[in-house]
């Protein structure tokens, strides 16, 4: 039983990891059990998931690293003139 129980800190850590699909099955199982009774972690997990969804929204765009380097180079050239 003691193996099953999680502290909130550990639960949050597993929750963070699972946002990047890096949590193991056993960890996720223990997190689920923890979430059954812990309100604070339920809240954290919900907002954490929301954040992940927002970032995975297809309309959320960012410039690729390559293009950024090109922009930087252009700017540097102009600066050194």
């Amino acid at each position, binding site marked *: 039983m003691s193996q099953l129980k999680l502290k909130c800190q550990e639960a949050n850590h597993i929750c*963070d*990891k699972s946002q990047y699909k890096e949590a193991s099955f056993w960890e996720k199982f223990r997190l689920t059990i923890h979430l059954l009774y812990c309100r604070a972690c339920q809240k954290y997990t919900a907002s954490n998931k*929301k954040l992940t969804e927002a970032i995975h*929204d297809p309309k*959320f*765009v960012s410039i690729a690293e390559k293009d*950024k380097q090109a922009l930087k180079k252009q700017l540097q050239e102009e600066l050194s003139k």
Partner: protein
Amino acid sequence: MLAGWVKFIIFDKTATALSMANNVIDPNLWVDKYSDYLYNYTIVRVNDSEIAKDLISETFLAGLKSKDNFKGEASERTWLISILKRKIIDHYRKINSNKGKAEVRITHDDSETEGDWLEQRVASKSDKNAQDQIENTELGMAIFDCLGNLPQKQAEIFRKKTIENHDTEAICNAYDITPSNLWVIIHRARKSMAECLESNWF
């Protein structure tokens, strides 16, 4: 008493002068700090990633040219946005100067839609409309806005891990930190990002 007030007023003046001087511009950081924010702003207005990138680089160059005119009254980002707005307007002026393009042409030789009634070619209501598009771009801007509020190191690591999907190990090596350090940073960043988005977006 009076001397105290005078001192206070003088101090106050220097303080505002200092805070105005805080709004200085540093073009070296522009790309890292603002390019994504500006990109999200532009993409919904021109709807083409190549044009958006061009407009942003034009904006940066124009900013560079007129950086001596920057009075420090607005933040750097607001100033860049105001340049960008003009660039976008210029872009539309340019493509509209050729008046012939303004007429609507309906072509009938598309083999796929040949024989369809005109009514059938109208976009269905469930398609994304302009309002959805604007809302979603505001999301992008809100995220980068919140990202800008984080401490620099946190923001960088959060960016690498979450948006650019780098490996944990690669980031740890690049910043010379342990994985547990990284997770603590990620946790703090996620927490403040979630709070910030909660108040600005959701």
